[in-house]
């Protein structure tokens, strides 16, 4: 079932078309991958989905409803959660408090809402402490619970961001390079976590450069290059696609100046 859909979305920054006529579907209960070289417009697409940048044309649909004109916090309340490529943790708060803020903000608006997805044991428990413990345990952050997040290494800070996003219990989760900063073992465990979350109904849109991880967890992949979707399909199909190969290796018709694969700096 499609939870999130982009209909020919474009985002323009002055004269630069960062995302051009991109269409994309995210299914509930599955991990969908969004890959592409640096500067392809992946983060801008995320920003447009959650209302941080306004699209210049096109629509964003959540559960079939047009949410293009809703503000960021309204979209969050409708069920869109995300993490950030450049970390946006609450550096002065502890790990537990970061996740608590997520819980508390959600509790401030979700009282009247119907049942939310239940993709983690203990999530949705009436006691906030049980919920918090469930998230900390699943993300293996129990030992760090009282550490200020400002002092954590990047990989763990990313997990805190994920925990915080989960605490708001979204129906679609946008993850922006969540595995950068994790070592091989941690990445494996992280892949298991994504599959577990998806198997309980969460729709995940994953931007990630770790190709083995993407190939393992994603059921569908979209490839973005210079703001356009150049390929879409199963991981195997995408891997065999020539346009994708040329985008990544720089041998195609639009070679970037300078080093292979180089592309303009991604507009934030």
């Amino acid at each position, binding site marked *: 079932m499609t939870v999130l859909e982009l209909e020919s979305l474009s985002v323009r920054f002055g004269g630069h078309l960062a995302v051009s006529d991109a269409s994309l579907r995210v299914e509930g209960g599955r991990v969908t991958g969004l890959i592409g070289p640096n500067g392809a417009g992946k*983060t801008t697409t995320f*920003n447009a989905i*959650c209302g*941080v*940048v*306004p699209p210049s044309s096109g629509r964003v649909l959540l559960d079939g409803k047009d949410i293009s004109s809703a*503000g*960021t*916090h309204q979209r*969050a*309340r409708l069920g*869109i*959660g*995300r993490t*950030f490529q*450049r*970390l*946006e*943790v*609450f*550096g*002065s*708060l502890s790990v537990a*408090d*970061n996740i*608590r*803020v*997520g819980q*508390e*903000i*959600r509790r*401030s*608006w*979700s009282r009247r809402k119907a049942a939310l997805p239940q993709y983690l044991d203990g999530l949705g428990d009436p006691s906030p402490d049980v919920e918090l413990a469930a998230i900390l345990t699943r993300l293996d952050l129990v030992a760090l619970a009282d550490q*200020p*997040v*400002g*002092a954590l*290494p*990047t990989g763990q*800070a990313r997990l805190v*961001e994920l925990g*915080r*996003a989960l*605490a*708001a219990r979204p129906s679609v989760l946008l993850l922006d390079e969540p595995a950068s900063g994790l*070592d091989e073992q941690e990445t494996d465990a992280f892949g298991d976590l994504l599959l577990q979350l998806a198997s309980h109904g969460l729709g995940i849109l994953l931007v990630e450069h770790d190709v083995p991880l993407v190939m393992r967890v994603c059921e569908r992949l979209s490839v973005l290059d210079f703001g356009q979707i150049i390929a879409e399909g199963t991981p195997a199909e995408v891997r065999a696609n020539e346009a994708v190969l040329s985008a990544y290796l720089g041998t195609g018709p639009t070679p970037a100046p300078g080093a292979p694969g180089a592309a303009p700096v991604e507009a*934030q």
Partner: protein
Amino acid sequence: MRTFLTATIGGLSTAAIYAITASGLVVTYTTSGVFNFAHGAFSMMAAFMYWQVHVAWGVPTLPAIVLVVFVVAPLFGALIERVIMRGIEGTSEVVKIVVTVSLFVALLGLANVIWPPTQSYTVLPFFNNAALSIFGVKVGWARLIALAVALAVAGGLRFVFTSTRLGIAMRAVVDDRSLLQLNGGRPGRTSMLSWAIGAGLAAIAGVLLAGEQTLSATTLSLLVINAYAVAVVGRLRSLPGVFVGSVILGLLVAYGQQYVSSEAAIGPVSLSGAVTAIPAVMLFVVMVLQPQDRLEARGATRVPTAARMPSMKLALWGGLAFVLVTAALGNLIAGPDLFKVAGGYLFALVMLSLVPLTGYAGQISLAQMTFTGIGAVAMAAWGASGSPLAVVASVLLCAVVGAVVALPALRLSGIYLALATAAFGLFCSAMVFNQQDVMPGLSRQVPRLALGPFKISSDYQQLVLLAVTFALVGIGLVALRRSAWGRRLAAMKDSPVACATLGLNLTATKVAVFALSAAIAGLAGSLAGRTFISDEFGLPASLPVTMLAVVGGIGSVAGAFMGGIFLGAFPIASTVFAANAIGVFRFVSLPVTDLVAFAPGATGVSLGREPDGAAPQMAAGFRAVGESVPSLVVSFAGFAALWLLARLDVVGGWAFVAAVLVFVLAVVPLLPLLFNPEDMGRKLATGIFVGLCTVVTVFIPWDTAIASNGMRALVIVLWAVLVVRTAIGVHGAVPDVVPRGPRTSPDMVGIDTPLTRADAVDAGRVLGIDEDELDLVTGRSQ
């Protein structure tokens, strides 16, 4: 028709001056990222300097202008950049705003010292006000010159920014300073140059204005509000926007002056200040018309803050101790001084209102005294009998007004809230606090509180009331910070965009915290229990409040108190030390009263080095005391003993001051160390030494041995420092309490500063290499 034409031409030439000022503002903002609140004060200094050179020293017009505009002003701007602004690179927006506000206050104070307002300063307009006739309207040459200069400035800036390498580097520096540096640009030089240009443009405006009216330091400095109103039209960044805005404002002001007489009124509301209020109104209207700002996800800074959250227990005991100490000290102080101390407590309460807003939520207000004024006037109007219900009503009124004022600005970024509140302060001075019905004769008595049969009737009771209020609000704020809402505010300060993606309505949250802040400021006014004059609620009165609250340490209740006492201490200092002067070199002798005029601003300017303020540093020294019960007992017993001696007139006033100083600075911080059982011999020696010093202090005949108050204070401070140093000498080294965090970004290591071993260890930790391995990798043995 002729009057209309005269007004139009006058308005256009005023517009020219606005445009020149505002372009300077926009140039420094776009190229250094600092919105210079002191920009109008730069113009003011230039105008006075022009008077000094041209009128006082008799230098002819042209050389005088060249000297002021092309030599002194750019050098001054470059100096400000090098000494002050470079230090605040990368700090929070609040610190940036407060540092330039401090510069404003300091320059205003300095000007009042160099050019005392008791004298009148006038400069003849260019060409002795000769005029030209255009369409039958006489137009002064000075006005035509202003227009020509504005056009030249517009053309010149456009050329520099679009066509020269330098201009492009100047635009690059604000987008990404490090990237420019990595690409071989020199950001230090470019931002210095942009400040030089900004100061030069401010100076041109100052010189053009000098001929228009008798020079007034405050009026000229507040010109910055006009420049703001104009710059907001171009969203603070666009030069064409500045010129459009200038024409609109210039014409509005000119028509206002022409057609709204000073006796005009709508019903009971006098319009005498309407023309002054035009820039403030324009600022609000333009702000309301702006579309909502985009959120930015640029990566939150991940530097753990130094301020620790106090426990509820500490807050409760601290509050109680605060009230007791106030009651004890207040009991020793006589009449007029008590009134001044209460003034300091009132400022402390107003500064406390900034703790949730600025300290917790990272927003800023430059108009807290205006809210205090609204609270005071409302209390005077509704609570003649001192009814607590009137206090509640006044506080609610302030909360509502605060919410309404903040709403348009809060949709936009942080800097707009500073502008909006400044404009609101100016508006209230021009349109509210000068109304006969609001402040008859520009003053108003606030009735003292009456709780049932108990009515506050003496200055001493009033002081204790303020202390109790401060303690209760302070405890409330600590509770707030520890609550879910407080956590949310801290989170919003760290990353607004993350909060929004969790479903938090940022605007509503900010409005709520602003309303709370306005309510606390209003509470201070409604409980002041004294007579206010309208100037106490003006923008020039609000600026030092915000500034010193941040200097004191805005994240904490203690910081607000330190700031308040600091601000309250200035009037006391100028009476105690009225006869003293501080000699700097042989021929400059600075009266203490003059020093008092610009010392607060100078303190704020130094904030760049300690963005967290003074309180966390002090608190770190005293925190251990709060955690050790015997230390607390001895601290209070010692203080009580000193108080008793003073109360029984065993020790005199100065001996008491000296003894308290030595006790608080030397004895109290050492106590936790002394109660530590290790190395008893040495501790005992130190303990006996500091104890003896305190006793000796009490019996030094301070009042008779030294003649002047200034000398006495100086000797007391030196004595206290000597005791502290010797005690540390006896005891051995005391570890540094506040570790300094790294300031350079890891990206710039080896480029901005040399690579150190600490950097390598940091990098190694991130990569999972421990220190021993690191030495193998880097091939170094040490």
